[in-house]
């Protein structure tokens, strides 16, 4: 095995790569011979194996496993392959970026063809995408001052600012949402309103000032802390238990091909 997988260079490398491509084309051609009705079982099998690898690695008993990188390592016989497998999956998964880019280009090329203001915006999209991609790859490959400065303008000047701005827009939306929705229309809305106000008063200097003459238990900040550490933890934990079991059930259904009524059904 290790004799087969040996690094090669030069023309031998090209030969090997050509062999791999031909080999894969042959394998895919053979796979294509699978009768239509049994294809879903092939897919199901692949799904099952993918899940089995991780499930076994997690559940099987472990023993000490010392490696060069980790003197306190432990694991079972699958553990040493984890890094390799996750690297392969990362690399294969990275190819989906192409699909996303194709989709974006399709939409925006059509708009370019249409003309008018929409076309202008699509042109903005293409130009900025190309500029950012080019300068990012360039500044990693040739980190000179010019490249660094242009990158700085596009990344810190524009991209991260746009990020932070869009993020901060939420502050405005919180104001309009709370003003509109927190009305004493029903028991539930009233509870929401009251706890929100108490917690808010507990976290600002002015709110703390209002209650500072009362005994400590009645301080807004004490009530806030009690709500957040005790009541909140309990409710969030209860919700979390349900979510945990629910996600476990979905995972089991997908893994074992028991999902019904959606895409994963015909998939399985």
């Amino acid at each position: 095995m290790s004799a087969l997988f040996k690094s090669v260079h030069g023309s031998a490398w090209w030969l090997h790569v050509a062999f791999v491509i031909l080999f894969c084309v042959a394998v895919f051609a053979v796979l294509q011979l699978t009768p239509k009705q049994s294809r879903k079982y092939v897919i199901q099998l692949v799904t099952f194996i993918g899940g089995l690898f991780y499930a076994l690695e997690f559940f099987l008993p472990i023993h000490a496993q010392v490696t060069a990188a980790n003197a306190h390592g432990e694991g079972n016989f699958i553990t040493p392959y984890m890094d390799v497998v996750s690297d392969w999956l990362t690399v294969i998964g990275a190819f989906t970026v192409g699909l996303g880019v194709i989709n974006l280009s399709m939409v925006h090329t059509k708009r370019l063809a249409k003309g008018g203001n929409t076309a202008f915006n699509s042109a903005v999209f293409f130009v900025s995408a190309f500029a950012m991609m080019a300068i990012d790859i360039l500044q990693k490959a040739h980190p000179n001052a010019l490249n660094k400065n242009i990158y700085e303008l596009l990344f810190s000047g524009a991209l991260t600012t746009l990020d932070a701005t869009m993020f901060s827009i939420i502050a405005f939306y919180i104001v309009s949402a709370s003003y509109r929705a927190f009305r004493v229309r029903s028991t539930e809305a009233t509870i929401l309103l009251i706890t929100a106000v108490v917690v808010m008063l507990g976290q600002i200097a002015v709110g703390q000032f209002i209650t500072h003459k009362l005994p400590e238990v009645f301080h807004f900040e004490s009530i806030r802390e009690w709500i957040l550490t005790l009541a909140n933890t309990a409710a969030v934990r209860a919700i979390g238990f349900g979510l945990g079991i629910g996600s476990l059930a979905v995972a089991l259904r997908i893994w074992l091909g028991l999902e019904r009524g959606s895409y994963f059904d015909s998939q399985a």
Partner: protein
Amino acid sequence: MSIWLGNHTHIFSLWIGAICTIGLYSVLYKENKMFRFFEHLFLGLATGYMIATTWNDVLLPKWWVPFHDEGKWWLAFAVAIGSLYYFIYSKKYNWMARMLIGLFLGVSAGQQFQVFVNDVWPQIYMSFKPVLPHSAIAASAIGPSVNAVTPVEAINNIVFMVILLCVMSYFFFSFEHKSAAMVHSARWGRWLMMFTFGAIFGSTIMARLALLIDRMDFMLNDFGGEAFAWTGNGPVAVLVLLFGLTGLVLYLSLGKKQDEESIEDPNAGNY
């Protein structure tokens, strides 16, 4: 060119930042051409960045360098397998792409066991709460030392358990909530959740406001302080500009208010 840009990068960066900020904020008035421009600029930059980081951080170090530079030819299999995704556009070979998708579905399902344990497991034993007070117990041959439980702690623990049970009872789906105990417990569970959600809302407000304050800090002190230093007091100059702009927008929008739909939400509180 290079030196000139080097000397001015900072001030350019501030100007770009300020213009981008105002451009996106313009959506607060209403969706408009300026917002559209910055939305597409944002999308473009993000796409370019995504392609570049995928190459720089994933494909280059994990694939191209070992594959090409180190001569690990078998990494060509990764391309062959990855290219299966593109069969999604073909009617005839579509199922091959599904095979690859199936693999990833299986992987995420298989990893869920560990995700479950890391998320939920510690919460189980952390929910063991003594509901009666007792004094401290020293370590012995049988077991470890145990801290004392004060009456206040015991009461808090009872509250904790009650909330936990009520909220969980709300999440039983497979039978009708008929018995009075179940009905009340589930209703209280829902109310207690609203209590929690109110608290989350209130405490998150602070984080979001902090972001807005940071943005304003940038506009007034960073940007205003440098780009408008010539006015003598940059921050105040920007503040005046900002409010001039806001006032104008308000004047325009309130003038046209009649023909806009009422902002009251007929369904609010009806979730």
